[in-house]
Each structure stands twice: as C-alpha cells, then as structure tokens.
C-alpha cells in the first residue's frame, strides 16, 4: 500500500490503495465521484472516459499508480463555475437543447471526449466530431443529436 496523490477537478486528492486499482474504482468508490460510469470494463465503450492531463482515457484501463502527480477531469468538474451559478456550461446546454442525452449512461464519457475535442480547437465538421467520439458508444441516440450538440459549440467552419 502507498498513497497516490493527484488533482481531481482542480482539488487535491490522496488515496491509499493498491497501485493496480482502477482509476474508475478510485473515482467512483473511494472519492464518491459516481458521474463516471462503467459500461464494459475493458476499454470498448468509453462510458468511463475521463481526461488525464487533458487526454481522453478509459478510466477502467488506467491503474491508479499511473495517475500519481497528474490532473484528472471528470464530468463533475465540467463547468464547475457554471454549476455554482446553478446552470450548465455551453456544451451541456447544447446536449440538453438538441437531445444529445437520452438514457444518460454514456453521457458523462461522451461529454469528456467532446471536451477534449473542443479544447483541441475542434471544428463543427461532422466527420471530425464523429472521429473524436468514435471511442464512446451510445445505444440510444444514433449519434445524430450528439454530433449536432458538439457542432453547436465547436469552432464554426470557415
């Protein structure tokens, strides 16, 4: 056993758990951040997507020992400022407006993948958006409205 320290949504976290414990379990069970979901546990569905130093990762495939000293962002940290105002940020608003979330179980991971795409300067190009969320399975929407939502807040096409 040894402690692992990292930042989650801007706040320091320290957990004393085995190094091979999945980041997903640390978030959900040790830190109570249940917004991140498990869909398959083997890196296929993307429901557990979080940002690790700004990169999208499947938190079910990341052992906590690899998170030491790094920055984790989860759906709970998306729009912290907006949440304090009791509202949603533009990406969340866009999902709500277009109907990009149905059952909602893929939504947290989908939002994180979208966030990484948008932070990287992603445009409203539909094919590029589809590429960016190709690792995140959704069984409800047919993806049409998710792509629409991300395009709504992306850099407009020239």
């Amino acid at each position: 056993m040894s402690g692992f320290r990292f930042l989650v949504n801007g706040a320091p976290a320290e957990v004393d758990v085995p190094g091979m414990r999945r980041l997903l379990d640390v978030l959900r069970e040790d830190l109570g951040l249940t917004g991140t979901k498990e869909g398959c546990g083997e890196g296929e569905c993307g429901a557990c997507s979080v940002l690790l130093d700004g990169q999208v990762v499947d938190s079910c495939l990341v052992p906590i020992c690899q998170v030491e000293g790094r920055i984790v962002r989860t759906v709970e940290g998306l729009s912290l400022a907006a949440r304090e105002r009791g509202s949603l940020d533009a990406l969340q608003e866009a999902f709500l407006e277009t109907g990009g979330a149905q059952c909602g179980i893929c939504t947290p991971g989908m939002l994180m993948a979208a966030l990484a795409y948008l932070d990287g300067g992603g445009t409203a190009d539909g094919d590029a958006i589809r590429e960016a969320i190709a690792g995140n399975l959704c069984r409800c929407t047919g993806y049409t409205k998710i792509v629409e939502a991300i395009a709504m807040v992306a850099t407009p096409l020239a």
Partner: protein
Amino acid sequence: MPIRTVARPPEIADVIAGALVLAPGEVAAGRADAMPRRREGPAKLTGAAKYTDDLVFPGAWYGITIRSTEPHARLTGIELDPAVDWSKVVVVTAADIPGENIVSLISDDQPVLVPVGGEIQHVAEPVALLAAADRETLRRLKGHVKLLTKPLAPVFDAEASDHVFAHYEIATGDLQAGFADAHVVLEGEYRVGHQEQLYIEGQAMIAVPGEDGGVVIHGSLQCPYYVHKALKRALAITSVQARVIQEETGGGFGGKEEYPSMLALHAVLLALKCHRPVRMIYDRHEDIAATTKRHPAVVRHRTGISRDGRLVAQDIEVIMDGGAYSTLTPVVLSRGALHAGGPYRCPNVRIQARATRTNTPPNGAFRGFGAPQTEFAAEVHIDRLAERLGLSPAEVRARNVYRLGDATPTGQVLRESVAAEEVLRLAVETSGFERLRDETARDLGERQGSGTIPAGVLRTSATRTAIGVGLALGWHGAGFTGSGEVHLASVAAVELTGDGRIEILVAATEMGQGTKTILPQLVAAELGVPQDWVDLATPDTAHVPDSGPTVASRTAMVVGGLCIQAARRLKADVEGRNPGMPFHEAFRNDAQDHGPTRIEQAFEPYPGVEFDDATYRGDAYPVFGWAAAVATVEVDLDTAEVVVRDVLAVDDVGKVIHRVLCEGQVEGGTLQAVGYATIEEIKLENGRYLNDRLATYLIPTALDAPQIRTILVEAPFSGAPHGAKGVGELPMDVGAPAVVAAIHDAVGVWITELPATPERILAALARRDTGAVA
C-alpha cells in the same frame, strides 16, 4: 382523416410545436414551454443522476452467480470445496427459496435457481449464489463451487425441436385459388440471428431486507410490477412486503423487461440470508453471456403475385428459437406472426408460426418484439417479387400497400389512421428514390460492362466501391397485442396534493425515451399550467398504481392517454368547486380548502376493438403505426464491407408529443436496425455464445452510423385522447430490409440472412458468378 407531416426546419417546427400541445382553449401558461427540455437532463449531464450502481448502502455485500457451463444436464449436486474457508460468505441454492422456485412471467417453466435433481437447460443458467463483504473474496471462492452433473443430449436446432412454446395459424381467403391466379409464384427463405440489446448500463439490482420480513429492491428495470409479482411468488411475501423502486436506468430496449425479475430474486435471496443489503451488478461479459437476446428466426415465404403486381397469395412459415425457457416467447411470436405479411393487402393468406425450445440462453423482449424478424423477410421478399416482375420497389409497394378500409389477415378492418401510403410517398419523393436508383443502375451496368478485375467481382480499375439505395415499408401494431391491454387493466393517477402540488403517479419508467418529460407535458397542457408545476412520482410500487409495463411503445399512447383523462377529470372537479375560475388560478386554494384530490383513471377498452385470442380473428391491435426507410449504402467491391451512408426515416406516430424526443427515438431505433443489418451477430458453439464481450459483439460507433434524417407523420388514433400511437419500435422494423435492399442495388445479390456481413455478400457474389442459384 387528417394526416400531417411534421417538418424539420426549426422555423416550421416552432410553429408546429405550439400546435402540438394538447392545451384546451387559450391557456398561455401551458404553451410557454411547449417542448420542454428533458426533465432529468441536467442531472444526467452533470453526473448527479444516480443509477443503481451509483447508490451507496452502508454495509452492503456483493453478490455473484454460479452458472452452468453445460447446455443440458441433470444437476446431481453442488459441492463446496472443503479445502477453503467458507465462513466469510453466504451461499444460496434453490433449497433457500421460501416460495415457489419460479420466475413468474407467462409460463411457470423457469426456475430462479436450478434445484439439485433438476435439469440445467442452458449454458450460463443460474445454479447458486454467493455474497461476501468484498469482491476479492468472491473472485477467489467462485472457482471452488463445483456443479455435479450428468450430461443430457442438447437440442440446438429450433426447427428440429419438438418442445413447442407457442404456435399460431392465421388464415384468410383461399390459398389454393390464390396461387392458381398468380402470374409469378416466388419462394424464399430468410434467416435472422440473435441480437443483444446492449444497453450501456448493465443489469443492476440492489436488495435491501426490511424489518417486516419484506424487501426493497432498487434497480435498473422497465417494469416495476413484473418484478413485484415475481418477488411475491418466489418469496411467498405480501404485496406490501415486496417493494420495487426503479432507479435511473441506462437503457432497456426490452432487455430490462423480464430479466430484472430473475436478478432481483437473486439479490433478495442473498440479502435475506446475510441480513444486509446485497448488490448484484453484472459486468458486461456476464450480461451478454446470460441475459436475453432477440429471437433468431427462420421465415419462409411462398407468394403469388398477379401480372399487374398485386399480391394474390401469401403462404408464410415462421419458426422462432425461444431458447431454453418460454419467457415472453409466446407474445413475441404472436407479434411476429401478425406482422409477417408486411403492410400489404392480400386476399389469400396463411401464416403458420411456431416457437420452440433449444438449449441456449432464453430469448426475450427486444425493441420490435418479433416484428423486425418477420418484416425483414416480408420486405426482402416483396423486393424480389418486384424484381421478377420488372417493377420498381416503390411501385410494387404502392400497388399493394394497405389503404383505409382494407382488411388484415386476422380480418381486422383498418378503419382509421392508415398512413402507409403517405409514409411511402414521402420516403420515395423526399429521398429521390427513383432517380437514385436510375443512377445506381447505370453505375452497375457500366461496371458489369467493362474492365472487370477477375478477382474482384464487379470491381473495375476505376471503381473500388458501389453505391446502392434501398427502400422498406413497415407497420407496427400500437400497444399490446390482442386483448393484452384489456387484461392489463392499467391504472394511472393524477393527484392534487394537500399542499397544492400536482403529481402524476404511474409505474411507467424512464429509460432514456422521455417518459419523465412527456407525461408532465401532457398533464400540464391538459390542466393549462406550466409543465414544471407538474411532478412525476418515482416509480415505486409502494406509491404508484400499476399503469402496466414500459414496453410495446405503449407509454405515450396508453399511459399518456390515461394521464390526460385523469387530468381532465381533476380539472373538472377543481373548476366545478370554484365556479368561474380556471384550474391554474383555482387549484392552490382548492387544495387548501378541500384537501387532496386524487383521480385514478383505469384503462377502458377502445370502442369497437375486439380480438379473439382463441381463433386469432379480429382487431389484433387498436391501430397501427407506419414506417418507411430509404437507406443508401456504399459497398467495397474488394472486401464487400458495407458502409451505410444515409437513412431517411419516415414514421407515422399518430401524434408527436415532443419533436426532439420523438426524433431521438427514430434515430436511435434506426441505428439499432442498421447494426442488426450489418454487424451485430452472436456466434454459438455447443450452446454458448462465443462473442460474449463488447470486444467481440460489435455495435455501431459514431463512425459506423449513417446520417439519419427523420420525417414525422401524424395520423392520429381516435382512441387516445391525444392521438398518439407510439414510436419506439417503429424504426426497428424497417432499417434492416432497407439496408439489404440497398446492398442488392449496389452489387446485385440478395442477402437473405442477417447480418449482411462481408463474408455473406462475397459468398453470394461467388455463387452468382459460378451460376449457382442464390
């Protein structure tokens, strides 16, 4: 009968959205939020929404299932390895079941756990349960439970099985006379395999033992009262002792219709034995390996058609593979049989359908419920008839499609809301179907004419891929089949509480489709108040009446209708007590002065709708929804890989309550149908699913998904106060045949077995090129 098309452009949609609200009179308040945002959307988007596995119950143990590894065997004993320490776990077997060892549903054939001395009927069948404080202990001990068995001969071929779960015959006219009049008689055999619902949230259930000997279930489920009934029976407890609460549910698609009863019982048996809450959360592998799938089917058509392209005889045989237990198979087969002819009039029909037992995991409910299987066959077959007659797929459909006043094979006269022709016309015209077909035919002709590379059938030095376009038309009976709704006798309630709140009480569940949004929307519009003044109670059997299961696309139509009727009565009561005041001004004071008013609305049979379950004659459904799809595919001429580029979906839902949610149903259903058509397949070996992981059972990603365009049509149903006919299942019926027709249009071969994999397409091309009959 008015039929309206709900167009997509926002400026038009805004206008229509206003008109869609079922507001009586001119109450502005009810119109302000005509198309509300998804009610639980903000919670889902911030991670605050609690799904079952997100719930914390201090002191809860984890439960797991010990499953059979053989397809058919007698269980002679269960042995716990004496060399390991069992003191930190509880073990449950069939001997621990206090009531009947039955998962209560239609038939009483499925045990909660296989008893010693009983028969194991399929691989992954639950035999024993373990619970412990931590998952590591369970992982360690799981392999030390040994099942002693004597193997029995398994049956895997549904056609060869002599154990029949259900059979139906639907007949009308004179088949022999019909065939005698036919210009062309065409036979065809069509096969479809298993399909996994693949909700992204796996099955999840937590049981909390109560002090009264009862239990509270928190779970991911579609039908609280199905679970409630199963608990009472197997545990021998009362209605009050059994309490079922639906938590936020991450998709269902039918997969959480009947299986949650089994899982809840498992969790409860462990919880009662260890006297603490028990969590039963399936991982994806267990979920795919053990839970229900769409029924595989073989459908054979022998069809006669006249020289001018009119159907004169349909002889159809349907065989469905029920798997090891009957679950919902009799009803799935019934819906499959009733839809087997397709949405076409034909004077002489015989439909013979049977479902049998095989030693494979039970098949059950999945969006479409038997109809996607038989409508796939019907649609490919009518395309092949059109090809034989030299008619276009659109033309053969236009000549045969049901019109007002036509009769179905059960003798049901289609008295209203028949939008099949309109749906077909919109699909054909909007997609430019005939023009697209001319273009693809020209391309195909050019490729066949010159420069063909021998190894790649049809491949030329210039063209690596071929485009094709395909059309399918479908119908879907609204609500429960036959006398189902009458037997259900659903009840919904709307209450004005003593503290002046308006609350809807129903067992209808939200699983992503929009229940939590549309029911308050309907009631608010009826009462003339803003929709956020209307609360929706949590589906909790301790508080809500049994408004029936959330299945069969019945929530908007049936439960929505009951809510409107209840609201209408509530409004009349309140306005009656407060003369001259509209409800929205009167209700708060009314609650103070008169206390709570609770209106319960029971389902009343739709006038004039009658079905005889014994003879299969009459109105199989009160009304039908109609759907069409036009798919455009691109087929790689070297690899036969299919990319579905575009699907135009046209769906008549009776009444659009919420355009965005309704489109979401059509888009999602269409993609599930595209997956069914192209990549979703279960392979079996000795009764076990070989690809029982998400790494091997593939569903479409955003890159696999076509552009989906939706046109919503409204041909209202007079039996529902708002006219709605349901939407969820409609798109599932037409996507697959449209894709297969498009593949044919691209490369000239018919794929008669789903999914249309590259292997099957290449094999069909090879057969054609060697002159064999496809």
